[in-house]
C-alpha cells in the first residue's frame, strides 16, 4: 500500500493533505462511519431530545496500549460513557481525538479503531466528530486519545446532585482493582505475569437498569483513578459524613489480591474501569442488588458499607479481623514496594 511507508503512520498522515484524507477514508470511516461523521464537516450538528445535557471529556495515555481485557480504544469510549452514565445521563455522542506518534503501526491503529467501534456499539453511542494529529517520533508514546461525550438528561433525579445521605448503603457492582493490576502487571519491566484482566466496560446499560429499580439513588461514581478509596473519600467530604466499610464484603478476586500483596498495594486504591459505587436508601438495597446481579456487569454486586453520621467526614473500615482503621486517599503515584 503506497500511502503507508512500511505499514506505518507518517507525519504526512496528520498534515491535512492527501494522506490525511486517505487515513480518514481508509481507516476511520469504514469502521466508525455514520451519517453524521461521513459528512466530514467542521463540526457535528446534533439532535438532542432534551434541553439538559451532560458533557464530559477525558484523555487516555495508558501504557501499554493493549492490555489483558482491553486496549486504549475501548478504554477511551468506556471512560467517557461511564462519566456520563453515573451522573444519570444517557450517553449519546462522542468525539474522538487522536494524537499519533510517527511510525505507529497501521495494524495496531486499525485494531484500536475497531475496538472503539465495538465499545461504542455496545454502549449505544455514536462517534460524531473527530480529529487526528501526528507528532514526530519521540514526542508521544505511540498513541494518545481524547474523547468528549454528550449525554441527555431525561428526568430529574437526586443522583445528578451526587450527595450521599446518612443511612445510605454503599453498593459496588464488580470486583476491585482489575484494571490497574492488569495494566501494571502487563508492563514488561515488572517481570511477572498474571492472568488478571481489565474490567473496562461501558456501565450505562447496568446503570439504566439500576435507575429503573430506584429513582432514589443519592450518588453514583465510577471508581477510576484513585480507586474505591478515592471516590469514597470524595463522597465523605462532599456530604460531610462518615463512611464505614466492611472489609470482608468488598469483592476482590484472588489473583488481584495476590498481585496487590506482592507489590504492596491495596485493591481499594487501584484503578478500575468498570466499577461503580452507588449510595442507595437501605430499604431499596436488596432489590437493587438482585437487579444488578442479573446484568453481566453487575454479577458480583454487593453492599460494602454504609454512610454514617453527618459532621465527621472520613472513611473507616472494619478489617477482616474485626479491628477498625482509616481509609485514606492515595498520595501521588502508586509505587511498587522493594522488599
Amino acid at each position: 500500500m503506497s500511502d503507508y511507508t512500511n505499514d506505518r503512520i507518517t507525519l504526512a498522515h496528520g498534515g491535512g493533505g492527501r494522506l490525511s484524507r486517505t487515513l480518514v477514508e481508509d481507516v476511520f470511516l469504514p469502521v466508525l462511519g455514520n451519517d453524521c461523521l461521513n459528512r466530514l464537516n467542521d463540526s457535528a450538528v446534533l439532535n438532542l431530545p432534551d434541553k439538559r445535557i451532560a458533557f464530559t471529556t477525558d484523555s487516555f495515555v495508558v501504557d501499554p496500549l493493549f492490555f489483558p481485557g482491553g486496549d486504549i480504544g475501548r478504554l477511551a469510549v468506556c471512560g467517557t460513557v461511564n462519566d456520563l452514565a453515573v451522573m444519570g445521563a444517557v450517553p449519546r455522542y462522542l468525539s474522538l481525538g487522536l494524537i499519533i506518534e510517527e511510525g505507529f503501526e497501521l495494524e495496531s491503529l486499525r485494531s484500536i479503531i475497531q475496538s472503539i467501534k465495538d465499545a461504542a456499539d455496545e454502549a449505544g453511542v455514536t462517534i460524531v466528530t473527530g480529529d487526528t494529529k501526528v507528532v514526530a517520533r519521540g514526542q508521544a508514546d505511540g498513541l494518545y486519545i481524547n474523547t468528549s461525550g454528550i449525554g441527555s438528561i431525561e428526568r430529574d433525579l437526586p443522583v445528578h446532585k451526587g450527595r450521599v445521605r446518612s443511612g445510605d448503603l454503599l453498593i459496588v457492582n464488580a470486583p476491585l482493582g482489575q484494571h490497574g493490576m492488569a495494566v501494571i502487571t502487563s508492563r514488561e519491566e515488572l517481570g511477572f505475569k498474571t492472568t488478571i484482566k481489565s474490567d473496562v466496560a461501558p456501565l450505562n446499560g447496568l446503570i439504566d437498569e439500576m435507575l429503573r429499580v430506584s429513582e432514589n439513588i443519592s450518588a453514583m461514581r465510577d471508581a477510576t483513578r484513585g480507586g474505591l478509596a478515592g471516590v469514597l473519600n470524595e463522597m465523605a467530604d462532599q456530604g460531610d459524613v462518615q463512611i464505614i466499610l466492611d472489609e470482608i464484603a468488598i469483592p476482590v478476586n484472588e489473583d488481584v489480591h495476590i498481585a496487590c500483596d506482592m507489590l504492596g498495594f491495596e485493591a481499594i486504591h487501584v484503578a478500575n474501569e468498570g466499577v461503580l459505587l452507588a449510595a442507595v436508601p437501605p430499604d431499596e438495597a436488596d432489590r437493587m442488588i438482585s437487579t444488578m446481579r442479573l446484568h453481566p456487569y453487575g454479577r458480583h454486586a454487593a453492599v460494602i458499607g454504609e454512610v454514617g453520621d453527618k459532621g465527621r467526614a472520613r472513611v473507616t473500615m472494619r478489617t477482616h479481623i474485626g479491628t477498625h482503621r482509616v481509609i485514606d486517599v492515595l498520595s501521588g503515584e502508586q509505587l511498587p514496594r522493594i522488599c
Partner: protein
Amino acid sequence: MTLKGEDAVYTAQRLAELINFEAANMPMAFMEVCGTHTMAIARNGIKSLLPECIRLISGPGCPVCVTSNEFLDKAIALAERSDVIICTFGDMIRVPGSRCSLEEQRGLGSDIRIVGSTLDALALADKNRDKDIVFLGIGFETTAPTVAAAIIEAYNKRLDNFSVLCAHKVMPQPMKALSESSLNIDGYILPGHVSAIIGEAPYSFLADDYNKACVISGFEPLDILESILRLVRQVRKGFFFIENQYVRVVKPQGNPTAQELLSQVFEPADAEWRGLGIIADSGLAIRDEYAQFDADKKYQISIAPPIEPPGCRCGEVLTGSITPDLCGLFGTSCTPMHPVGACMVSSEGSCAAHYRYTLRDA
C-alpha cells in the same frame, strides 16, 4: 494463617484475649524490625487489639528509610551525567535527598527508570551499550541475592556498562545496637522474608547474649498476633530463644543458595544507617573481584556534604525512640503527598503507615 470471615474475627479476638491474659499487666515492649510488619500492623489495626501493657515499636527495617542522604546525593550526582541511566526500585524515587529527589531530578531531564528486578536493569544494559546503567542497590538480605546474581551475570556476559551503587545492609547487626540502647526492648518480631534467606542462627546472640524474646513472624495479621503471644510467653517464662512462627516459609537453615550468592559477591562492611549512624559490619560491599561493577569505585563520585532536613526526626522514628506523631513535621509539613523525610515516602515507612491507617481526629 489465612482465615476468612467470622473465623478470622474469632481467632483474632481469642489470640488477643490470650495475649492479655498471659501478659498479666506486665509492661513489655516489642520491636517489629521489618517495614512490611509495620505496615501490616497498621493496616490491620493490631495495636487496638493489644492490652495497654504491650507496646509495639517500629524498627529500622524499611530499606528506603534507613538509606542515608549521602547515598541519594551520590545517585543524583550520577543521574546528572548524560551517559548514565539510573535504574531503581520504585520506592526510592520520591525520597528527598539533600537538594532534591530522584523524581525531581528526572523532571530536570535525567534518565531515571523504575525497574521491577535487577534482570530488567541488566537487559537495559544489554540493549543500550552506549550508556552506563547504574542500579541502585538498596535493601536487606531479601533483595541483595538478586543483585549478587545480576553482578555475576554481568561478569559472565562481560557487560562493562553495568554497575551497582551499593547500599545493601544486613539485619542482625543493627539489632545488636538496638539491644544495647536505652529503648528497653523485651523482644523482637523478626523479619519473615529476611529470615527465609539467613535462617535462624544469625539471631541467636539476641536471645543468648541479650535475653531478648525472638519470634520469626509471618505477615498475615493472625501470624503477627500469634507471634506476639509467643513473645509474651518467652518473657513471662524468662526463657529466650529463636522461635519460628513462620514455618511455612522459613527453614531453620534459611536458603543456602542465596547465602552462597551473597558471600560470593559481597563482603561485610561498615554501613551508615539513617538514625543509627555507622554500624560495624552491617553493610554489604562488593568484593574486589567484582570491583568493575561497583559504581562507587567506577565513578569516584564526589558530592557536597549531605544536608538533613531541619526538624525531621526520621532518625528517632527509625530507632523507635519516638512515634511518628511526636515529630513536629508529622501530618503538617510532612505528609505522603509532600514528604520531608524518608519514613513518610516509603510504602513501608513508619510515618506513612501511621499517617495512612491510624484513626485521627478529623
